[in-house]
Protein backbone atom coordinates (compact mmCIF):
# COMPACT_ATOMS: atom_id res chain seq x y z
CA UNK A 1 0.00 0.00 0.00
CA UNK A 2 2.75 2.46 0.92
CA UNK A 3 4.75 1.50 -2.15
CA UNK A 4 1.70 2.17 -4.30
CA UNK A 5 1.14 5.54 -2.60
CA UNK A 6 4.76 6.48 -3.20
CA UNK A 7 4.56 5.43 -6.83
CA UNK A 8 1.39 7.44 -7.25
CA UNK A 9 3.05 10.52 -5.75
CA UNK A 10 6.01 10.19 -8.13
CA UNK A 11 3.72 9.80 -11.09
CA UNK A 12 1.69 12.82 -10.06
CA UNK A 13 4.85 14.91 -9.72
CA UNK A 14 6.13 13.74 -13.09
CA UNK A 15 2.79 14.54 -14.66
CA UNK A 16 3.26 18.18 -13.68
CA UNK A 17 7.02 18.27 -13.99
CA UNK A 18 7.40 21.97 -14.73
CA UNK A 19 5.03 22.99 -11.99
CA UNK A 20 6.66 20.62 -9.52
CA UNK A 21 10.17 21.86 -10.33
CA UNK A 22 9.16 25.49 -10.01
CA UNK A 23 7.51 24.76 -6.69
CA UNK A 24 10.54 23.02 -5.26
CA UNK A 25 12.88 25.89 -6.12
CA UNK A 26 12.06 27.50 -2.77
CA UNK A 27 13.05 24.33 -0.93
CA UNK A 28 16.13 23.88 -3.12
CA UNK A 29 17.37 27.39 -2.40
CA UNK A 30 16.48 27.13 1.27
CA UNK A 31 18.35 23.87 1.82
CA UNK A 32 21.28 25.00 -0.32
CA UNK A 33 21.55 28.28 1.61
CA UNK A 34 21.40 26.66 5.04
CA UNK A 35 23.86 23.89 4.23
CA UNK A 36 26.27 26.24 2.45
CA UNK A 37 26.25 28.68 5.35
CA UNK A 38 26.83 26.01 7.96
CA UNK A 39 29.52 24.31 5.89
CA UNK A 40 31.38 27.58 5.37
CA UNK A 41 30.96 28.45 9.05
CA UNK A 42 32.46 25.11 10.02
CA UNK A 43 35.31 25.70 7.59
CA UNK A 44 35.92 29.11 9.08
CA UNK A 45 35.94 27.68 12.60
CA UNK A 46 38.36 24.97 11.54
CA UNK A 47 40.67 27.47 9.90
CA UNK A 48 40.67 29.82 12.90
CA UNK A 49 41.17 26.98 15.32
CA UNK A 50 44.04 25.70 13.25
CA UNK A 51 45.67 29.12 13.49
CA UNK A 52 45.13 29.18 17.23
CA UNK A 53 46.51 25.67 17.47
CA UNK A 54 49.70 26.99 15.87
CA UNK A 55 50.30 28.79 19.15
CA UNK A 56 50.83 25.39 20.72
CA UNK A 57 48.63 23.53 23.13
CA UNK A 58 48.54 24.08 26.89
CA UNK A 59 50.36 27.29 26.29
CA UNK A 60 49.96 30.81 27.64
CA UNK A 61 51.40 33.73 25.74
CA UNK A 62 52.17 36.90 27.67
CA UNK A 63 53.05 40.16 25.95
CA UNK A 64 53.24 43.82 27.02
CA UNK A 65 50.19 45.88 26.21
CA UNK A 66 49.54 49.59 26.46
CA UNK A 67 46.98 50.58 29.08
CA UNK A 68 44.47 53.31 28.42
CA UNK A 69 46.40 55.98 30.31
CA UNK A 70 48.89 56.14 27.47
CA UNK A 71 51.92 55.13 29.44
CA UNK A 72 54.31 52.86 27.61
CA UNK A 73 53.92 49.34 28.98
CA UNK A 74 56.86 47.92 30.83
CA UNK A 75 58.61 45.43 28.63
CA UNK A 76 59.37 41.93 29.84
CA UNK A 77 62.96 41.15 30.69
CA UNK A 78 64.97 37.97 30.84
CA UNK A 79 64.58 38.19 34.65
CA UNK A 80 60.82 37.93 34.27
CA UNK A 81 61.22 34.77 32.25
CA UNK A 82 63.42 33.30 34.96
CA UNK A 83 61.03 34.42 37.72
CA UNK A 84 58.05 32.81 36.01
CA UNK A 85 59.98 29.60 35.46
CA UNK A 86 61.13 29.42 39.04
CA UNK A 87 58.16 30.72 40.97
CA UNK A 88 55.06 29.31 39.27
CA UNK A 89 53.91 25.78 40.00
CA UNK A 90 52.81 23.72 37.03
CA UNK A 91 54.95 25.57 34.51
CA UNK A 92 56.89 23.20 32.29
CA UNK A 93 58.95 25.77 30.47
CA UNK A 94 59.10 29.48 29.82
CA UNK A 95 60.63 30.98 26.77
CA UNK A 96 61.09 34.56 25.70
CA UNK A 97 61.15 35.81 22.17
CA UNK A 98 62.56 38.99 20.66
CA UNK A 99 62.43 39.77 17.01
CA UNK A 100 63.51 42.33 14.50
CA UNK A 101 63.07 42.70 10.76
CA UNK A 102 66.35 42.31 8.96
CA UNK A 103 67.86 41.60 5.57
CA UNK A 104 69.39 38.18 5.21
CA UNK A 105 72.31 37.80 2.80
CA UNK A 106 73.71 34.62 1.34
CA UNK A 107 75.32 33.63 -1.90
CA UNK A 108 75.20 37.24 -3.09
CA UNK A 109 71.42 37.45 -2.62
CA UNK A 110 69.46 39.60 -0.21
CA UNK A 111 66.08 38.79 1.32
CA UNK A 112 63.67 40.63 3.66
CA UNK A 113 63.29 38.43 6.68
CA UNK A 114 62.98 38.49 10.43
CA UNK A 115 65.41 37.46 13.09
CA UNK A 116 63.87 35.82 16.15
CA UNK A 117 65.75 35.42 19.38
CA UNK A 118 64.47 32.12 20.73
CA UNK A 119 65.45 29.14 22.81
CA UNK A 120 64.94 25.42 22.51
CA UNK A 121 62.25 25.82 25.17
CA UNK A 122 60.43 28.26 22.86
CA UNK A 123 60.52 25.76 20.02
CA UNK A 124 59.12 23.12 22.36
CA UNK A 125 56.31 25.33 23.57
CA UNK A 126 55.36 26.40 20.07
CA UNK A 127 55.71 22.90 18.76
CA UNK A 128 58.33 23.78 16.17
CA UNK A 129 60.05 20.75 14.69
CA UNK A 130 63.39 20.50 12.93
CA UNK A 131 63.63 19.69 9.25
CA UNK A 132 67.43 19.45 8.99
CA UNK A 133 70.39 19.78 11.35
CA UNK A 134 70.08 20.40 15.06
CA UNK A 135 68.82 22.81 17.64
CA UNK A 136 70.98 25.06 19.82
CA UNK A 137 73.32 23.51 22.35
CA UNK A 138 73.13 24.60 26.00
CA UNK A 139 76.48 26.32 25.57
CA UNK A 140 75.23 28.24 22.51
CA UNK A 141 72.12 29.39 24.36
CA UNK A 142 74.19 30.36 27.39
CA UNK A 143 76.77 32.36 25.48
CA UNK A 144 74.59 33.69 22.70
CA UNK A 145 76.68 32.12 19.99
CA UNK A 146 76.57 33.16 16.33
CA UNK A 147 74.60 30.16 15.19
CA UNK A 148 71.20 30.15 13.52
CA UNK A 149 68.34 27.94 12.47
CA UNK A 150 66.79 29.21 9.25
CA UNK A 151 63.15 28.94 8.25
CA UNK A 152 62.08 26.98 5.16
CA UNK A 153 61.09 30.17 3.36
CA UNK A 154 64.52 31.73 3.84
CA UNK A 155 66.14 28.48 2.76
CA UNK A 156 64.12 28.42 -0.41
CA UNK A 157 64.74 32.06 -1.28
CA UNK A 158 68.49 32.58 -0.85
CA UNK A 159 70.15 29.21 -0.40
CA UNK A 160 71.34 27.10 -3.31
CA UNK A 161 69.01 24.26 -4.01
CA UNK A 162 70.27 20.73 -3.44
CA UNK A 163 73.28 21.99 -1.43
CA UNK A 164 73.09 21.35 2.30
CA UNK A 165 72.77 24.69 4.12
CA UNK A 166 74.29 23.22 7.28
CA UNK A 167 77.62 24.87 8.10
CA UNK A 168 77.01 27.69 5.59
CA UNK A 169 77.31 31.31 6.66
CA UNK A 170 74.38 33.66 6.45
CA UNK A 171 74.60 37.40 7.16
CA UNK A 172 71.74 39.01 9.05
CA UNK A 173 72.19 42.77 8.55
CA UNK A 174 75.76 43.11 9.87
CA UNK A 175 75.95 39.90 11.82
CA UNK A 176 77.26 36.73 10.34
CA UNK A 177 76.24 33.40 11.73
CA UNK A 178 76.58 29.72 10.99
CA UNK A 179 73.55 27.69 9.96
CA UNK A 180 73.16 24.69 12.25
CA UNK A 181 69.63 23.69 11.30
CA UNK A 182 66.45 24.31 9.32
CA UNK A 183 63.08 24.24 11.08
CA UNK A 184 60.11 22.48 9.58
CA UNK A 185 57.32 24.54 8.09
CA UNK A 186 54.86 25.47 10.82
CA UNK A 187 51.17 26.17 10.97
CA UNK A 188 50.68 29.79 10.06
CA UNK A 189 49.80 32.11 12.92
CA UNK A 190 47.44 34.12 10.79
CA UNK A 191 49.01 37.45 11.71
CA UNK A 192 49.70 38.25 8.08
CA UNK A 193 53.30 37.24 8.50
CA UNK A 194 54.95 34.26 7.04
CA UNK A 195 56.07 32.31 10.08
CA UNK A 196 58.38 30.30 7.86
CA UNK A 197 60.25 33.45 6.88
CA UNK A 198 62.33 33.68 10.07
CA UNK A 199 65.86 33.02 11.21
CA UNK A 200 66.21 31.77 14.79
CA UNK A 201 69.22 32.76 16.87
CA UNK A 202 69.79 32.37 20.62
CA UNK A 203 67.89 35.00 22.65
CA UNK A 204 71.05 36.42 24.18
CA UNK A 205 72.59 36.97 20.79
CA UNK A 206 69.48 38.75 19.54
CA UNK A 207 69.46 41.05 22.54
CA UNK A 208 73.15 41.85 22.21
CA UNK A 209 73.45 42.29 18.46
CA UNK A 210 69.98 43.33 17.30
CA UNK A 211 67.84 44.97 19.97
CA UNK A 212 70.59 46.24 22.19
CA UNK A 213 68.53 45.75 25.34
CA UNK A 214 67.74 42.84 27.63
CA UNK A 215 64.01 43.15 26.97
CA UNK A 216 62.05 40.43 25.28
CA UNK A 217 59.02 40.77 23.00
CA UNK A 218 56.77 38.15 24.48
CA UNK A 219 57.03 35.00 26.50
CA UNK A 220 55.55 31.60 25.92
CA UNK A 221 54.69 29.63 29.03
CA UNK A 222 53.90 25.99 28.49
CA UNK A 223 52.25 24.29 31.42
CA UNK A 224 51.50 20.84 32.66
CA UNK A 225 48.03 19.93 31.32
CA UNK A 226 47.25 18.44 34.74
CA UNK A 227 47.04 22.01 35.99
CA UNK A 228 44.16 24.32 35.14
CA UNK A 229 45.10 26.93 32.57
CA UNK A 230 42.95 29.51 34.33
CA UNK A 231 44.69 29.01 37.69
CA UNK A 232 48.13 29.31 36.14
CA UNK A 233 47.00 32.35 34.21
CA UNK A 234 45.85 33.98 37.47
CA UNK A 235 49.10 33.30 39.29
CA UNK A 236 50.98 34.55 36.24
CA UNK A 237 48.99 37.79 36.32
CA UNK A 238 49.68 38.17 40.05
CA UNK A 239 53.38 37.55 39.55
CA UNK A 240 53.83 39.99 36.69
CA UNK A 241 51.76 42.67 38.47
CA UNK A 242 54.02 42.28 41.46
CA UNK A 243 57.16 42.49 39.36
CA UNK A 244 55.76 45.52 37.52
CA UNK A 245 54.83 47.06 40.88
CA UNK A 246 51.25 47.72 39.81
CA UNK A 247 49.02 49.08 42.55
CA UNK A 248 45.64 47.45 43.17
CA UNK A 249 43.17 49.07 40.77
CA UNK A 250 45.81 49.81 38.17
CA UNK A 251 45.13 47.96 34.92
CA UNK A 252 47.47 45.26 33.68
CA UNK A 253 50.13 46.62 31.33
CA UNK A 254 50.37 43.24 29.68
CA UNK A 255 48.04 40.68 28.20
CA UNK A 256 47.88 36.92 28.39
CA UNK A 257 46.40 34.64 25.78
CA UNK A 258 45.40 31.14 26.73
CA UNK A 259 45.41 29.08 23.54
CA UNK A 260 42.82 26.62 24.82
CA UNK A 261 40.43 29.30 26.09
CA UNK A 262 40.91 31.31 22.93
CA UNK A 263 40.12 28.27 20.87
CA UNK A 264 36.93 27.72 22.77
CA UNK A 265 35.83 31.35 22.64
CA UNK A 266 36.46 31.73 18.94
CA UNK A 267 34.81 28.39 18.30
CA UNK A 268 31.66 29.36 20.14
CA UNK A 269 31.51 32.83 18.58
CA UNK A 270 31.77 31.43 15.07
CA UNK A 271 29.29 28.69 15.94
CA UNK A 272 26.79 31.26 17.15
CA UNK A 273 27.30 33.36 14.05
CA UNK A 274 26.83 30.28 11.91
CA UNK A 275 23.57 29.45 13.63
CA UNK A 276 22.33 33.01 13.16
CA UNK A 277 23.18 33.06 9.46
CA UNK A 278 21.75 29.58 8.95
CA UNK A 279 18.54 30.67 10.66
CA UNK A 280 18.22 33.58 8.25
CA UNK A 281 18.86 31.19 5.37
CA UNK A 282 16.25 28.91 6.95
CA UNK A 283 13.62 31.56 6.34
CA UNK A 284 13.89 30.88 2.63
CA UNK A 285 13.21 27.24 3.43
CA UNK A 286 10.06 28.35 5.20
CA UNK A 287 9.04 30.39 2.17
CA UNK A 288 9.66 27.29 0.08
CA UNK A 289 7.34 25.36 2.38
CA UNK A 290 4.58 27.89 1.82
CA UNK A 291 5.07 27.40 -1.92
CA UNK A 292 4.58 23.67 -1.46
CA UNK A 293 1.40 24.29 0.50
CA UNK A 294 0.09 26.55 -2.23
CA UNK A 295 0.67 24.04 -5.01
CA UNK A 296 -0.79 21.24 -2.93
CA UNK A 297 -3.97 23.26 -2.38
CA UNK A 298 -4.19 23.83 -6.13
CA UNK A 299 -3.66 20.14 -6.67
CA UNK A 300 -6.40 19.18 -4.22
CA UNK A 301 -8.85 21.49 -5.97
CA UNK A 302 -7.89 20.22 -9.42
CA UNK A 303 -8.23 16.64 -8.34
CA UNK A 304 -11.46 16.94 -6.37
CA UNK A 305 -13.16 14.52 -8.74
CA UNK A 306 -10.35 12.01 -8.40
CA UNK A 307 -10.59 12.28 -4.62
CA UNK A 308 -14.34 11.73 -4.89
CA UNK A 309 -13.78 8.57 -6.94
CA UNK A 310 -11.25 7.25 -4.45
CA UNK A 311 -13.52 7.95 -1.50
CA UNK A 312 -16.53 6.44 -3.27
CA UNK A 313 -14.56 3.30 -4.01
CA UNK A 314 -13.82 2.88 -0.33
CA UNK A 315 -10.73 4.93 0.50
CA UNK A 316 -10.61 6.07 4.13
CA UNK A 317 -9.99 9.71 5.04
CA UNK A 318 -6.54 8.87 6.33
CA UNK A 319 -5.66 7.05 3.13
CA UNK A 320 -6.49 10.10 1.06
CA UNK A 321 -4.62 12.28 3.54
CA UNK A 322 -1.62 9.99 3.33
CA UNK A 323 -1.63 10.18 -0.45
CA UNK A 324 -1.41 13.96 -0.52
CA UNK A 325 0.98 14.12 2.39
CA UNK A 326 3.27 11.67 0.63
CA UNK A 327 3.16 13.80 -2.46
CA UNK A 328 4.15 16.91 -0.51
CA UNK A 329 6.94 15.08 1.30
CA UNK A 330 8.29 13.52 -1.88
CA UNK A 331 8.25 16.94 -3.51
CA UNK A 332 10.16 18.43 -0.57
CA UNK A 333 12.60 15.53 -0.50
CA UNK A 334 13.39 16.04 -4.17
CA UNK A 335 13.96 19.71 -3.44
CA UNK A 336 16.08 18.84 -0.42
CA UNK A 337 18.20 16.42 -2.41
CA UNK A 338 18.86 18.89 -5.20
CA UNK A 339 19.51 21.55 -2.57
CA UNK A 340 22.16 19.35 -0.96
CA UNK A 341 23.87 18.78 -4.29
CA UNK A 342 23.80 22.49 -4.98
CA UNK A 343 25.14 23.22 -1.49
CA UNK A 344 27.96 20.76 -2.03
CA UNK A 345 29.12 22.51 -5.18
CA UNK A 346 28.48 25.98 -3.83
CA UNK A 347 30.26 25.55 -0.52
CA UNK A 348 33.14 23.76 -2.22
CA UNK A 349 33.61 26.70 -4.60
CA UNK A 350 33.04 29.39 -1.98
CA UNK A 351 35.44 27.73 0.43
CA UNK A 352 38.08 28.04 -2.27
CA UNK A 353 37.20 31.69 -2.84
CA UNK A 354 37.28 32.79 0.79
CA UNK A 355 40.18 30.44 1.53
CA UNK A 356 38.76 28.26 4.27
CA UNK A 357 38.88 24.48 4.31
CA UNK A 358 35.85 22.64 2.87
CA UNK A 359 34.49 20.73 5.84
CA UNK A 360 31.77 18.32 4.67
CA UNK A 361 29.52 17.41 7.56
CA UNK A 362 27.26 14.41 7.06
CA UNK A 363 25.12 15.34 10.05
CA UNK A 364 24.47 18.85 8.72
CA UNK A 365 23.45 17.40 5.38
CA UNK A 366 21.24 14.72 6.88
CA UNK A 367 19.64 17.15 9.27
CA UNK A 368 18.84 19.64 6.53
CA UNK A 369 17.41 16.88 4.40
CA UNK A 370 15.26 15.71 7.30
CA UNK A 371 14.20 19.29 7.84
CA UNK A 372 13.07 19.66 4.24
CA UNK A 373 11.08 16.44 4.54
CA UNK A 374 9.51 17.87 7.67
CA UNK A 375 8.55 20.96 5.66
CA UNK A 376 6.57 18.59 3.45
CA UNK A 377 4.72 17.21 6.45
CA UNK A 378 4.06 20.60 8.03
CA UNK A 379 2.97 22.41 4.90
CA UNK A 380 1.44 19.38 3.22
CA UNK A 381 -0.75 18.55 6.18
CA UNK A 382 -3.41 21.20 5.71
CA UNK A 383 -4.04 20.51 1.99
CA UNK A 384 -4.00 16.77 2.64
CA UNK A 385 -6.49 17.17 5.46
CA UNK A 386 -8.67 19.27 3.24
CA UNK A 387 -8.65 16.52 0.62
CA UNK A 388 -9.54 13.87 3.16
CA UNK A 389 -12.49 15.89 4.49
CA UNK A 390 -14.22 16.08 1.14
CA UNK A 391 -17.64 14.56 0.85
CA UNK A 392 -17.58 11.82 -1.80
CA UNK A 393 -20.88 12.84 -3.41
CA UNK A 394 -19.99 16.51 -3.63
CA UNK A 395 -16.49 15.71 -4.82
CA UNK A 396 -17.89 13.48 -7.57
CA UNK A 397 -20.21 16.24 -8.72
CA UNK A 398 -17.25 18.68 -8.96
CA UNK A 399 -16.41 19.70 -12.51
Amino acid sequence: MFGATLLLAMRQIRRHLLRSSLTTIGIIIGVAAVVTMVTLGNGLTASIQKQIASLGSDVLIAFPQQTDNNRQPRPFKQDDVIAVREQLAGVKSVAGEVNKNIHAFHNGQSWNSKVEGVSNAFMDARGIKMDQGRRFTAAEEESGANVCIVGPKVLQEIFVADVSPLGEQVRLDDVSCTVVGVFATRAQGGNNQDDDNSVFIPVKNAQRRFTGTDTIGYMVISYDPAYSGAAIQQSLIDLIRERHRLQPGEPNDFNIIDSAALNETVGSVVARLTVAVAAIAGISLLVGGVGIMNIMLVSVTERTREIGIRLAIGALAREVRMQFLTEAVVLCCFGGLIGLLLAFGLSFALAKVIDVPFVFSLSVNLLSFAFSAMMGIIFGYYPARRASKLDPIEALRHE
Partner: protein
Amino acid sequence: MAEATSRPLIELHGITKTYGHGSAAFQALKGVSLSIARGDFVAIMGASGSGKSTMMNILGCLDTPTSGTYAFDGFEVQSLSKDQRSLLRRKYLGFVFQGFNLLSRTSALENVELPLLYRGEKKAARREAAMKSLDLVGLGPWASHTPAELSGGQQQRVAIARALVTDPQVLLADEPTGNLDTERSIEIMELLADLNRSGITIILVTHEAEMAAYARTIVRFRDGLVERIDSGQDAGAAAHA
Protein backbone atom coordinates in the same frame (compact mmCIF):
# COMPACT_ATOMS: atom_id res chain seq x y z
CA MET B 1 -25.37 -16.07 6.38
CA ALA B 2 -27.77 -18.39 8.18
CA GLU B 3 -30.22 -15.61 8.82
CA ALA B 4 -29.86 -14.27 5.29
CA THR B 5 -33.10 -15.74 4.14
CA SER B 6 -35.12 -14.57 7.09
CA ARG B 7 -34.06 -10.93 6.87
CA PRO B 8 -33.97 -8.68 3.79
CA LEU B 9 -30.47 -7.53 2.82
CA ILE B 10 -31.64 -3.94 2.58
CA GLU B 11 -34.38 -2.32 4.63
CA LEU B 12 -35.33 1.33 4.26
CA HIS B 13 -37.88 3.08 6.45
CA GLY B 14 -39.19 6.59 5.86
CA ILE B 15 -36.08 7.79 4.07
CA THR B 16 -36.06 11.49 3.21
CA LYS B 17 -33.32 13.53 1.63
CA THR B 18 -33.32 17.29 1.56
CA TYR B 19 -30.76 19.22 -0.46
CA GLY B 20 -29.82 22.78 0.54
CA HIS B 21 -31.14 24.88 3.39
CA GLY B 22 -33.87 27.40 4.07
CA SER B 23 -35.71 28.72 1.06
CA ALA B 24 -33.33 26.89 -1.29
CA ALA B 25 -34.11 23.57 0.38
CA PHE B 26 -35.33 20.84 -1.93
CA GLN B 27 -36.67 17.52 -0.78
CA ALA B 28 -35.53 14.93 -3.32
CA LEU B 29 -36.83 11.98 -1.32
CA LYS B 30 -40.00 12.34 0.66
CA GLY B 31 -40.21 9.21 2.78
CA VAL B 32 -39.22 6.03 0.99
CA SER B 33 -39.69 2.62 2.56
CA LEU B 34 -38.31 -0.35 0.70
CA SER B 35 -36.98 -3.85 1.29
CA ILE B 36 -34.63 -5.68 -1.03
CA ALA B 37 -33.97 -9.37 -0.58
CA ARG B 38 -30.58 -10.96 -0.99
CA GLY B 39 -30.07 -12.15 -4.54
CA ASP B 40 -32.78 -9.94 -5.99
CA PHE B 41 -32.43 -8.10 -9.29
CA VAL B 42 -34.04 -4.69 -8.86
CA ALA B 43 -34.64 -2.06 -11.51
CA ILE B 44 -35.45 1.45 -10.35
CA MET B 45 -37.39 3.47 -12.88
CA GLY B 46 -38.93 6.88 -12.91
CA ALA B 47 -38.89 10.25 -14.58
CA SER B 48 -35.80 12.38 -14.61
CA GLY B 49 -35.47 14.22 -11.32
CA SER B 50 -37.68 11.78 -9.44
CA GLY B 51 -34.87 10.94 -7.00
CA LYS B 52 -33.40 7.74 -8.45
CA SER B 53 -29.74 8.76 -8.21
CA THR B 54 -30.33 10.22 -4.78
CA MET B 55 -31.78 6.89 -3.72
CA MET B 56 -28.83 5.00 -5.25
CA ASN B 57 -26.32 7.19 -3.41
CA ILE B 58 -28.05 6.42 -0.15
CA LEU B 59 -28.32 2.71 -0.98
CA GLY B 60 -24.65 2.74 -1.90
CA CYS B 61 -23.79 4.32 1.47
CA LEU B 62 -22.21 7.25 -0.36
CA ASP B 63 -24.71 9.65 1.12
CA THR B 64 -26.74 9.72 4.32
CA PRO B 65 -30.48 10.30 4.47
CA THR B 66 -31.82 13.45 6.14
CA SER B 67 -34.16 11.25 8.12
CA GLY B 68 -35.30 7.64 8.20
CA THR B 69 -33.45 4.42 8.83
CA TYR B 70 -31.39 2.26 6.51
CA ALA B 71 -30.29 -1.18 7.60
CA PHE B 72 -27.78 -2.94 5.37
CA ASP B 73 -27.37 -6.55 6.40
CA GLY B 74 -28.14 -5.39 9.94
CA PHE B 75 -25.84 -2.33 9.95
CA GLU B 76 -27.62 0.92 10.82
CA VAL B 77 -26.03 2.87 7.99
CA GLN B 78 -27.43 6.30 8.94
CA SER B 79 -25.47 6.22 12.20
CA LEU B 80 -22.14 5.14 10.67
CA SER B 81 -19.25 7.59 10.27
CA LYS B 82 -17.84 8.53 6.89
CA ASP B 83 -14.92 6.14 7.30
CA GLN B 84 -17.20 3.33 8.49
CA ARG B 85 -19.33 3.79 5.41
CA SER B 86 -16.14 3.65 3.31
CA LEU B 87 -15.27 0.34 4.91
CA LEU B 88 -18.78 -0.96 4.26
CA ARG B 89 -18.53 0.08 0.60
CA ARG B 90 -15.15 -1.45 0.04
CA LYS B 91 -16.26 -4.68 1.66
CA TYR B 92 -19.76 -5.31 0.37
CA LEU B 93 -20.65 -2.92 -2.41
CA GLY B 94 -19.77 -2.29 -6.01
CA PHE B 95 -20.97 0.93 -7.56
CA VAL B 96 -21.30 1.83 -11.22
CA PHE B 97 -21.80 5.57 -11.47
CA GLN B 98 -24.09 7.36 -13.85
CA GLY B 99 -21.08 9.10 -15.45
CA PHE B 100 -18.53 6.19 -15.25
CA ASN B 101 -16.24 8.15 -12.91
CA LEU B 102 -13.04 6.52 -14.05
CA LEU B 103 -9.65 8.05 -13.25
CA SER B 104 -8.47 9.73 -16.41
CA ARG B 105 -4.89 9.23 -17.56
CA THR B 106 -4.90 5.94 -15.70
CA SER B 107 -5.12 2.64 -17.54
CA ALA B 108 -8.25 0.50 -17.46
CA LEU B 109 -6.33 -2.12 -15.51
CA GLU B 110 -5.25 0.35 -12.84
CA ASN B 111 -8.75 1.75 -12.59
CA VAL B 112 -10.05 -1.73 -11.92
CA GLU B 113 -7.24 -2.40 -9.44
CA LEU B 114 -8.10 0.67 -7.38
CA PRO B 115 -10.67 -0.88 -4.98
CA LEU B 116 -8.24 -3.74 -4.30
CA LEU B 117 -5.51 -1.24 -3.46
CA TYR B 118 -7.66 0.15 -0.67
CA ARG B 119 -8.41 -3.36 0.47
CA GLY B 120 -4.67 -3.79 0.98
CA GLU B 121 -4.22 -6.53 -1.63
CA LYS B 122 -0.70 -7.31 -2.85
CA LYS B 123 0.31 -6.11 -6.28
CA ALA B 124 0.33 -9.52 -7.94
CA ALA B 125 -3.07 -10.41 -6.51
CA ARG B 126 -4.44 -7.03 -7.65
CA ARG B 127 -3.15 -7.55 -11.17
CA GLU B 128 -4.64 -10.99 -11.42
CA ALA B 129 -8.07 -10.12 -10.04
CA ALA B 130 -8.28 -6.96 -12.15
CA MET B 131 -7.36 -8.86 -15.30
CA LYS B 132 -9.99 -11.49 -14.51
CA SER B 133 -12.59 -8.82 -13.99
CA LEU B 134 -11.68 -7.09 -17.26
CA ASP B 135 -11.84 -10.40 -19.10
CA LEU B 136 -15.29 -10.94 -17.62
CA VAL B 137 -16.56 -7.75 -19.25
CA GLY B 138 -14.64 -8.63 -22.41
CA LEU B 139 -12.03 -5.88 -22.10
CA GLY B 140 -8.92 -7.97 -21.52
CA PRO B 141 -7.17 -6.68 -24.64
CA TRP B 142 -7.87 -3.07 -23.63
CA ALA B 143 -6.32 -3.34 -20.18
CA SER B 144 -3.57 -0.83 -20.85
CA HIS B 145 -5.81 1.77 -22.51
CA THR B 146 -6.75 4.94 -20.65
CA PRO B 147 -10.44 6.00 -20.54
CA ALA B 148 -9.74 8.63 -23.19
CA GLU B 149 -8.70 5.83 -25.54
CA LEU B 150 -11.89 3.83 -24.95
CA SER B 151 -15.41 4.18 -26.31
CA GLY B 152 -18.33 5.10 -24.04
CA GLY B 153 -19.48 1.48 -23.90
CA GLN B 154 -15.98 0.28 -23.11
CA GLN B 155 -15.65 2.87 -20.36
CA GLN B 156 -18.97 1.70 -18.96
CA ARG B 157 -17.67 -1.86 -18.93
CA VAL B 158 -14.45 -0.78 -17.19
CA ALA B 159 -16.65 0.84 -14.55
CA ILE B 160 -18.55 -2.43 -14.17
CA ALA B 161 -15.30 -4.41 -13.98
CA ARG B 162 -14.13 -2.04 -11.24
CA ALA B 163 -17.37 -2.56 -9.32
CA LEU B 164 -17.09 -6.34 -9.66
CA VAL B 165 -13.43 -6.81 -8.87
CA THR B 166 -13.99 -7.00 -5.12
CA ASP B 167 -16.67 -9.71 -5.42
CA PRO B 168 -19.30 -7.47 -3.89
CA GLN B 169 -22.53 -8.76 -2.41
CA VAL B 170 -24.43 -5.94 -4.03
CA LEU B 171 -23.84 -4.26 -7.34
CA LEU B 172 -25.42 -0.84 -7.72
CA ALA B 173 -25.52 0.54 -11.22
CA ASP B 174 -26.91 3.98 -12.03
CA GLU B 175 -28.01 3.89 -15.66
CA PRO B 176 -25.25 1.54 -16.79
CA THR B 177 -26.70 1.50 -20.29
CA GLY B 178 -27.62 5.17 -20.40
CA ASN B 179 -25.34 6.14 -23.23
CA LEU B 180 -25.06 2.88 -25.10
CA ASP B 181 -26.78 1.64 -28.21
CA THR B 182 -29.27 -1.19 -27.84
CA GLU B 183 -26.84 -3.90 -28.87
CA ARG B 184 -24.25 -2.81 -26.28
CA SER B 185 -26.97 -2.32 -23.68
CA ILE B 186 -28.18 -5.85 -24.10
CA GLU B 187 -24.62 -7.13 -23.75
CA ILE B 188 -24.31 -5.30 -20.45
CA MET B 189 -27.72 -6.51 -19.25
CA GLU B 190 -26.82 -10.11 -20.09
CA LEU B 191 -23.67 -9.67 -18.09
CA LEU B 192 -25.60 -8.29 -15.12
CA ALA B 193 -28.13 -11.12 -15.36
CA ASP B 194 -25.27 -13.63 -15.34
CA LEU B 195 -23.81 -11.99 -12.26
CA ASN B 196 -27.19 -12.06 -10.59
CA ARG B 197 -27.49 -15.77 -11.33
CA SER B 198 -24.13 -16.25 -9.61
CA GLY B 199 -25.66 -14.78 -6.46
CA ILE B 200 -24.93 -11.06 -6.57
CA THR B 201 -27.78 -8.75 -5.63
CA ILE B 202 -28.21 -6.18 -8.38
CA ILE B 203 -29.87 -2.79 -8.16
CA LEU B 204 -29.90 -0.74 -11.28
CA VAL B 205 -31.48 2.47 -12.47
CA THR B 206 -32.79 2.61 -15.98
CA HIS B 207 -35.15 4.59 -18.16
CA GLU B 208 -35.60 1.82 -20.64
CA ALA B 209 -38.31 -0.79 -20.22
CA GLU B 210 -36.29 -3.22 -22.34
CA MET B 211 -33.51 -3.16 -19.77
CA ALA B 212 -35.83 -3.18 -16.78
CA ALA B 213 -37.32 -6.40 -18.17
CA TYR B 214 -34.22 -8.26 -17.06
CA ALA B 215 -35.05 -7.44 -13.45
CA ARG B 216 -37.11 -9.48 -11.04
CA THR B 217 -38.38 -6.47 -9.12
CA ILE B 218 -39.24 -3.08 -10.56
CA VAL B 219 -39.50 -0.04 -8.30
CA ARG B 220 -41.09 3.06 -9.77
CA PHE B 221 -40.22 6.48 -8.40
CA ARG B 222 -42.29 9.60 -8.76
CA ASP B 223 -41.46 12.93 -7.17
CA GLY B 224 -39.38 11.50 -4.42
CA LEU B 225 -41.72 8.69 -3.51
CA VAL B 226 -42.08 5.05 -4.44
CA GLU B 227 -45.09 4.91 -6.67
CA ARG B 228 -45.30 1.17 -7.30
CA ILE B 229 -43.39 -2.04 -6.79
CA ASP B 230 -43.83 -5.00 -9.10
CA SER B 231 -42.13 -8.28 -8.50
CA GLY B 232 -42.00 -11.79 -9.82
CA GLN B 233 -43.84 -12.55 -13.03
CA ASP B 234 -45.59 -9.19 -12.97
CA ALA B 235 -42.28 -7.46 -13.36
CA GLY B 236 -41.81 -8.36 -17.00
CA ALA B 237 -45.22 -7.05 -17.89
CA ALA B 238 -44.88 -4.07 -15.58
CA ALA B 239 -41.67 -3.03 -17.29
CA HIS B 240 -43.58 -2.11 -20.38
CA ALA B 241 -46.46 -0.54 -18.50
